[in-house]
């Protein structure tokens, strides 16, 4: 078995007496899409925040690309190669689409203490940004103000910014939300191809997308992983059926 890119090692997080994460151990292996599903309030967001570095677990360790990153913040984890997209789009809304993506390219390049050279005339940064916009299908909107984009387009833009980081792993929090049927289908096709570049830890409510994409699925209920397996295994798991998928699954 290949070494996982990302691994949580029995992480636990309490909010007062509430166990938001309990002994969670999941792995993201090279080339895979690992979906994380669970009903509302299952602790998915808390888990994502611990993986991204917004929160530190009370117990347990997080490994990324062979390093213990448990104590690192969001900036250091992004620099280490974790490409994140948000459940609620988090972009520079006054900037154009292209400026947001150039910011991503700048983040990867790292030369931010440059005060005189114009950023948007930097051929390397702009080329990288435009290539990413091309891939997500937003290139025609590159001069649009980000605030004027639809929710779905903002999602695509976040993915484009994440691409410019050339991450070692993607952490995507509900990328399908707000996309509509056709957009969701397009993004599903896109993520399908993306896993070869870097594995994706995908939190998603769109079950069609999850079952179409995921190599493995982990089911989180009350902060605990109750099952991990292939789509077929998860469908057949009786605990999952009662806890989450309900009658129609």
């Amino acid at each position: 078995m290949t070494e996982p890119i990302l691994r949580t090692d029995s992480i636990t997080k309490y909010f007062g007496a509430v166990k938001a994460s309990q002994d969670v151990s999941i792995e993201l292996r090279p080339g895979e899409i690992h979906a994380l599903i669970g009903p509302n309030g299952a602790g998915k967001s808390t888990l994502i925040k611990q993986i991204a570095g917004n929160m530190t677990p009370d117990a347990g360790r997080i490994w990324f690309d062979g390093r213990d990153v448990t104590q690192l913040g969001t900036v250091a984890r992004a620099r280490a190669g974790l490409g994140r997209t948000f459940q609620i789009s988090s972009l520079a809304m006054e900037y154009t689409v292209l400026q947001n993506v150039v910011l991503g390219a700048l983040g990867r390049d790292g030369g931010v203490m440059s005060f005189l050279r114009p950023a948007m005339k930097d051929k390397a940064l702009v080329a990288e940004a435009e290539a990413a916009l091309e891939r997500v299908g937003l290139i025609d909107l590159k001069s649009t103000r980000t605030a004027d984009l639809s929710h779905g387009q903002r999602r695509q833009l976040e993915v484009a910014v994440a691409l410019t980081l050339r991450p070692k792993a993607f952490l995507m929090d509900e990328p399908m939300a707000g996309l509509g049927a056709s957009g969701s289908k397009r993004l599903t096709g896109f993520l399908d191809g993306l896993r070869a570049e870097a594995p994706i830890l995908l939190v998603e409510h769109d079950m069609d997308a999850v079952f179409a994409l995921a190599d493995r699925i982990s089911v989180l209920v009350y902060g605990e992983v109750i099952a991990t397996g292939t789509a077929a295994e998860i469908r057949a798991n009786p605990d999952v059926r009662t806890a989450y998928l309900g009658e129609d699954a």
Partner: protein
Amino acid sequence: MTMIRETYVNAAIMLLLLGIPVWAHVAGQPFTITLATKVAILAMAGVGLNIALGLGGMVSLGHAVFFGIGGYSMGILAHHAQTFTPLMEVPLLIEGTKFMPVIWVVAVAVSALVALAIGALSLRTGGVYFIMITLAFGQMFYYFAISWPAYGGEDGLSIFVRNDFPGLNTLVPIQFFAIAFVALSLSLTLSHLIARSRFGLALGAARQNAERVQTVGLDPMRVKLVAFVISGAITGLAGALFADLNRFVAPTMFSWHLSGELIIFIILGGIGRLFGPVVGAGLFILLEHFLGGLSEFWLIYVGAILLGVVLFARGGLIGALSGREVAHD
């Protein structure tokens, strides 16, 4: 389109600021030149603040600290030079100076250092707390200056002869204006370049959404701190020039009224607009001059204008003249 119009508006403002004192020089109206010099210097202080406030979203109500530090850098160095006393003898001998370039370097360096210290502490907070903590630092410096008898305390320091600049007679109003005008032009150029640079892109993003900047692996606090230091240094240099204009330094240079006035310049002119502080300072000084002659309560009118701008012209006067800001490319 609006971008091009704003360039014309900016050029017209600079021509006006240059043309009026040149005319006054020819017409023999030195007081008008002094007014224009005051506008140029206060505008420069505003350009400094605009980098923190407009580009970086840091509402500093303590920028008079840097203005005052620039002023006292000039005052202390020139005071020692005119009284022929060394600034310090142990461990090494430091003499005062009347040489402007040296004074400027000192003003910029000390302002930058203080901005680094104040910024590092203040940027741990945000929003209203940031405003309050910068105000608190301002008050600390103000009362420190008042209670420092060696340099005049409450009465301040008078410098009898304006400091020297090679090749110029700085006592001739138009020649000192030239210095202030060039300094303002350079600070505007720097501000323009920074806004469009890689640093400026990250700074603008840090203002809009710190989380976004972190997600691409950049530290928004570090970017903001550097911007705060640059901002403080420019305002500090303006303070040194202001002290030289008046040949006088007093604790009022540190006062929060002045910090507030700098913010008013920016709001009047247009937050984050390159020439916002220039228009704002110009309008403020004109109102002070003309309305101040009519009534000592002239600030009431400034208040009314400020209210009008905030309610009806969100882009300030520059915005009203040249339209909504377009995202730059």
